[in-house]
């Protein structure tokens, strides 16, 4: 039984748990502040993002987020009109979307999102986007367009708390998704055999789960209903590489059903100039999940052709869809060791809230089940949120970083690739549409190895040189970890406790703690600002980040 009734009161421990699971951690001061507020109102504000000052974040994001210089791009030889594109000195924004989409640099796209996760004042929106990115897993390897990938993330950010059927339909129309699972090539006109790729995963991976209320015939019929789903590109969305003008890339796209109608934009999805869209949408009747639809009838108002078929999943198979969502939400936010009864309770909540994800998440994050101490640190954390949370807890605040000289933003562009991949999660580029297995599947010898390497960068002040400039990968200051306003540590255990309050590992056995502290401070303890003391503190932070306890959240 999952007790989904709301908690009436909470502690700082509860608040920190909320911060870890539904954000990327809270500082000790933030946790203390939130704990004084009533849980219901605080969770509502956490989910809705109300009462947040976004001004500095928006300003930094627009003009100076990436401290790593973009190198000069030399003109391609033999291409008429090609020009050399000068280097872009840092700091600047990430140069992967809008008019800069031609750069199409996955690492900078990953860095751009990591930066947002680290500094967004509405961390929950980024956490939900990361959750949905794992569920609607779409990969740059095939889409080959970072602007479209980030466009999908923005969709998840903006609509991740809509009704599930709305979100499912929106993702199905998303340009990156249309490329990823071949919707753009799904032609069911006349005797053409439809491409089942998207229809299968729309059921198996994105709404119901394998073998959960549908059969092969339903897949084929859904593929026919969604045939022709694609997008067009407007003149404003079409971007040329200034160093190689014939090379164009779409910085965005507009959903269309390719049904022989006039193209309102200048280009098709694959950037061909066509005044008329190809005719790919299927005809006749489709029987899907026991209901019959006329593919040639005018769709219901506000819907595209075939959309009513897709949307019928959540109504025709409501219990299965709710169960599917419950399983994923439980595994990501609460525990992977749920019982069948827990799952049924959460699924009932999803159905009772009519698949309204905002209402579901608010109820879940207020619930006694979520806050049960038995679920605290019961999940292994994925490597992206792990490294983001560590960067938040040990790095500078946005205002501090923006005011520092040089600016104190992490050099995410030098961290993300290939190290997130090697740590087990290649952000924006999963190897398949099933995303990544969560919880303890995150942990193996290789991913632990790369977590310890990331820990070195996070705790030990590692530097790297790019374009002649040496960057601290994660700018940190031991003085910030031990503010002057707080009492100076009197014992090694005070140092440990302070770092544990920042890093928030799962409980660490006293024997482990004592062995670490005895190793670092074998003699008398004295707190001072010397490099020797600071290096001991950094090594303790490193030991903590590498420990099995710090992989849990």
């Amino acid at each position, binding site marked *: 039984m999952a007790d989904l009734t709301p908690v009436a009161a909470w502690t700082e421990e509860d608040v920190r748990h909320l911060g870890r699971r539904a954000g990327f951690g809270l500082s000790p001061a933030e946790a203390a502040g939130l704990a004084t507020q009533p849980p219901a109102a605080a969770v509502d504000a956490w989910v809705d993002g109300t009462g947040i000052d976004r001004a500095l974040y928006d300003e930094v994001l627009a003009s100076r987020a990436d401290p790593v210089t973009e190198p000069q791009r030399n003109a391609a030889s033999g291409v008429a009109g090609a020009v050399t594109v000068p280097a872009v000195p840092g700091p600047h924004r990430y140069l992967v979307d809008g008019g800069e989409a031609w750069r199409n640099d996955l690492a900078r796209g990953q860095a751009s999102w990591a930066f947002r996760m680290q500094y967004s004042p509405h961390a929950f929106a980024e956490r939900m986007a990361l959750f949905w990115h794992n569920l609607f897993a779409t990969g740059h390897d095939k889409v080959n367009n970072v602007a479209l990938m980030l466009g999908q993330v923005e969709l998840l950010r903006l609509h991740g708390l809509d009704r599930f059927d709305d979100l499912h339909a929106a993702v199905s129309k998303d340009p990156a998704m249309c490329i990823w*699972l*071949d919707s753009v*090539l799904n032609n069911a006109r006349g005797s*053409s*055999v*439809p*491409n*089942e*790729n998207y229809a*299968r995963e729309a059921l*198996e991976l994105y709404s119901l789960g*394998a*073998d959960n209320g549908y059969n*092969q015939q339903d897949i084929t019929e859904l593929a026919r209903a969604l045939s022709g789903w694609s997008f067009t590109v407007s003149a404003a969305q079409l971007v040329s590489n200034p160093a190689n003008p014939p090379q164009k890339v779409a910085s965005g796209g507009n959903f269309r059903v390719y049904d022989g109608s006039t193209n309102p934009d200048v280009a098709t999805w694959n950037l061909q100039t066509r005044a008329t869209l190809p005719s790919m949408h299927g005809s006749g009747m489709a029987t899907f999940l026991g209901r019959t639809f006329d593919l040639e009838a005018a769709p219901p108002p506000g819907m595209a052709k075939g959309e009513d078929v897709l949307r019928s999943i959540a109504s025709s198979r409501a219990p299965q869809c709710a169960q599917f969502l419950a399983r994923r939400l439980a595994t990501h936010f609460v525990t992977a*060791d749920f019982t069948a009864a827990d799952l049924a309770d959460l699924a009932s909540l999803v159905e009772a809230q009519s698949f309204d994800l905002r209402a579901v998440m608010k109820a879940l994050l207020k619930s006694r089940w979520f806050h049960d101490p*038995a679920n*605290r*640190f*019961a999940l*292994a954390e994925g490597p992206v949120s792990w490294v983001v949370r560590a960067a938040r807890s040990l790095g500078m605040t946005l205002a501090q970083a923006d005011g520092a000289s040089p600016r104190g933003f992490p050099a995410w562009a030098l961290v993300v690739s290939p*190290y997130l991949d*090697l740590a*087990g999660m290649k952000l924006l580029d999963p190897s*398949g549409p099933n995303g990544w297995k969560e919880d*303890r599947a995150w*942990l*193996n*010898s*290789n*991913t*632990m*190895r790369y977590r*310890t*390497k*990331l820990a*070195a*960068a996070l705790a*030990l002040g*590692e530097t*790297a040189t790019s374009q002649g400039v040496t960057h601290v*990968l994660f700018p940190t200051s031991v003085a910030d970890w031990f503010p002057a306003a707080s009492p100076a540590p009197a014992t090694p255990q005070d140092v440990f406790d302070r770092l544990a309050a920042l890093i928030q590992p*799962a*409980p*660490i*056995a006293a*024997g*482990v703690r004592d*062995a*670490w502290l005895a*190793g670092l401070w074998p003699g008398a303890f004295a707190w001072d600002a010397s490099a020797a003391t600071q*290096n001991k503190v950094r*090594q303790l932070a*490193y*030991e903590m980040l*590498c*420990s*099995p*306890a710090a*992989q*849990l959240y």
Partner: protein
Amino acid sequence: MITRRRFLQGAGAAGAAALGAQACGGMRGGLGAPPIARPAAPILVVVDVDGGNDWLNVLPPTSGPNRIAYDTLRPTLGLPASGLADLGSGVGMNPDFGAMVDLYTRGRLALVTGVGMKSPNLSHFVSIDYWGQGAASPDGTGWLGRLADQAFSPTGDVLRGLTVTSDLPVMLRGSSRSFVSITGASGYVYPSPLRSSGRLGAPWDSTLLETAFGVAVGSAAPDPASAAGYAAGALAGKMFLDAQNGFGVDGALPARTPSVLYPGDAGYPLTRLNGGALSTGLANQLKLVARMIAADIPAQIYFTRMGGFDTHANQAVDHPNLLRALGGAVNSFYDDLAGVSTSQGNAQDRVVVMAWSEFGRRVRENNGGTDHGTAGLSFFVGRAVKGGLYGAYPDLTDLDNGNMRFTTDFRSLYATVLERWLGRTAAETDAILGAAYPRLDFLAA
């Protein structure tokens, strides 16, 4: 070692036709030189052909009712029989499988067609899960993981099973044992900085830090809520720590230059259809495996993976490119091992490659591609392999809802490998798989 001329002959369509002339007349086993006996220290290299390989376009039918059905259902993607290397029995090999044609005529390639399971699920993920578990009654562990449970030392044998993928596939998951994952040849060491290999130096105390990590991964959680997660992290960390010095000084394998070219290397004779270099993913993994074998890493099992076979669209371009990279990488690896001496004998004598894919694809093509299907192709390469065609070719005129009916249970492959290659007794083999599955004769009893 194979000569360049012979290689090209094997790869080209003209060469393939010439080989077909030699090969026709029913090649069910007994090709080329006789297989060698099982070596004292056998090594299994698993190749996961990920995405569902459209093997009907690797080994198309060349004659009879199957050919008629193939022509009907593959009007644009079907390959003309005239361009195939004739393997006999009404089966031909796609010349884009390149060097594998040559390996076949040398008698070192066994092809098992129609491999599958009852009540096949057309999902990649469910199918991969079943293939990985490989049990009569799946329980979440993998068949090679259960081999490790049964055969590996509970406290040692850290490097006996390795994957060169960054994940830990379900196939390798045991109830008490796990496989080490290694994706690079240098810097397998703790503590180490992010962006460079080697051990952390001053001002950091690497000895102290390594001791501290050992204490943490040798411990348990003090509270029940985090106990299972802590144990999982501790196991992973301990395997990393225990394995690190097995990979040479400061975690760096000795350098090695492959003795042959691999797909994607400059000068490799095959390219993509458009002239570009072939993908190097599997080639790099197999180079790393060869390097580990040459370094006498005591591994008995290596796991590799090549993705991209989910050819729903653009198959006429993508699939040939994939086959060239797959066939080329496996053949280069086999040839590369010929000159490698290990403490347990010649490396080529010690290795069998086992390639599998989660399913074959739909017989009827869609618009430019093929959708998910059922029965698949597995193949085995090695000096101990008795080359030829195994399993029955599915009847393309008797489809089940458009899909092939399987003819060989996938667990028969595992039973054969466990008993006839990895040296488990019949009883041990059946215990790992949960039932007795028929053994196939591509390996000698």
